[in-house]
């Protein structure tokens, strides 16, 4: 099914994180520098595994690639006013979760055009906002949230330290007799017997 791409008619099978496979044209796939570096010259025997990303995300990414196959000369992201209806729909259809997944997948696949568009879109979301609004837009944790998170982590670290210390202490106490050298073993037994004798004699 998959072979070294020499013509745009060639189709490649892509495998998503769910194990599902779907077709992508060679022309679309060649917009990915990751693909070009890994498979373009040697081809692929089976489906190409992009298993870090789900099917919906990959389909969205390659939908963009398929659409921009004919846009040969790329000179940076377009201005908002120059975006086509298709471009606008493409971005508007995505929810925030999908948008993040698309950026990350596009970044992994090294699709310069899509990554730049996404970054420009985030920049547009930030422009003209004050700091508080920016934090909200990009959902950064607030200073209080960061402080609370740090406190929880400190508590966790302290608890883990305590547990580790206790474990070490217990391990010290429960030293197995076999692990002790013979002389030390004799001495330990003697001490125990002495303590037992003394306790009896005290009674």
């Amino acid at each position, binding site marked *: 099914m998959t072979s070294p791409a020499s013509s745009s008619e060639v189709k490649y099978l892509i495998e998503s994180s769910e194990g599902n496979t779907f077709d992508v044209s060679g022309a679309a796939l060649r917009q990915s520098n990751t693909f070009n570096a890994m498979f373009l010259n040697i081809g692929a025997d089976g489906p190409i595994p992009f298993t870090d990303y789900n099917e919906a995300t990959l389909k969205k990414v390659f939908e963009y690639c398929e659409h921009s196959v004919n846009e040969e000369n790329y000179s940076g992201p377009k201005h908002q006013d120059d975006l086509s209806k298709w471009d606008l729909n493409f971005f508007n259809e995505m929810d*925030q979760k999908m948008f*993040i997944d698309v*950026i990350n997948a596009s970044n992994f696949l090294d699709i310069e055009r899509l*990554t730049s568009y996404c*970054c420009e879109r*985030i920049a547009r979301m*930030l422009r003209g906002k004050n*700091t508080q609004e920016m934090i909200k837009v990009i959902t*950064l944790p607030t200073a209080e949230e960061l402080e609370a998170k740090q406190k929880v982590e400190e508590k966790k670290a302290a608890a883990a330290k305590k547990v580790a210390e206790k474990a070490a202490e217990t391990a010290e106490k429960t030293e197995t007799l076999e692990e002790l050298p013979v002389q030390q073993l004799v001495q330990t037994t003697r001490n125990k017997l002495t303590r037992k004798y003394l306790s009896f004699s005290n009674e």
Partner: protein
Amino acid sequence: MMEKAQPIWQELPTHCKADVVSYLDFESRCLLRSCSKSDYDLVKSCPVYLGKVELFPPTRFALSEQSYQIDEFKQVMVFLQVFQHPKSYAREVSINFDRFYESGDIQQFFILLLDSMKTKTDFKIKSASLYINDHAKTVNGREFLELLQFFDSSKLKKINLSSQIAPEYFEMVSKTEQWKNATELKAFGYYNYNIPIESLLHFDRLNVQHINRLSTEKAWKFIENFLRRNPALGSCFQVQTMFALDIDGILENFSVFPNNEPTEHEYSTYYKHTQLFELPNPNHICVVKISEHGIYAAVCRITHLEPDFRWYLFGVRIE
């Protein structure tokens, strides 16, 4: 229940964040910088590319035509932030002192600016153009020399000064790399002292107004040097003098027969002599015009002598 918003920012790879920052204007970058420590570091690591950076102390500051009302301390702070990254670049840096500003205050502002830049290691202003509007001639000496040396000499191409360079500093200024590497000079001050013209001859575009006197030898030296450099189309110079030129004396120095060939279509008595000098490129002509108080020269297309002459020297378009 409303779905919790996804944290866009933390999920983004660092180079994508840098990409986002590159699309932000300077003001948004400053605001993003205050969001968190990591954003501060991110913004700091991204160079800024701006059109004009204009300082109008004490109250106004402008970045790429966007004006802000900020005091002089903040202006210096922002100025340092703009050029903090070694790759940051502005097309023009303009320092504009209001006419009615006390000269002592101008000096104080300049010292604040210079001292702040000195505290930064290897601080360089990367800009193609420097414009200083200082009618009071308060900072035309040591301060100007020091400021000029903060500019990256490989980037600075154009120097535009509203007032004269103090006589005791002219030589030092002309020996800086920044001066030597610049290709364009506009000097509008009154040079009531004899400036060594040798330090002006390397400019491809030169506009010096109000030179004190220009001897016939020096006047010819300007023209001869210009021709010898085989100037490119658009190269030009104009030197105006406070005292009238000895036109006949200049013409006597000409290496060719003085032949007056006016290029303007309408009748004009402003230019007393127009000479057309041939250049190695047969499509170009060097038009030299001499008026009572100035010499004007420009390399023009042979087919568009007057339009090119006016455009290159005065920025005026004619048919």
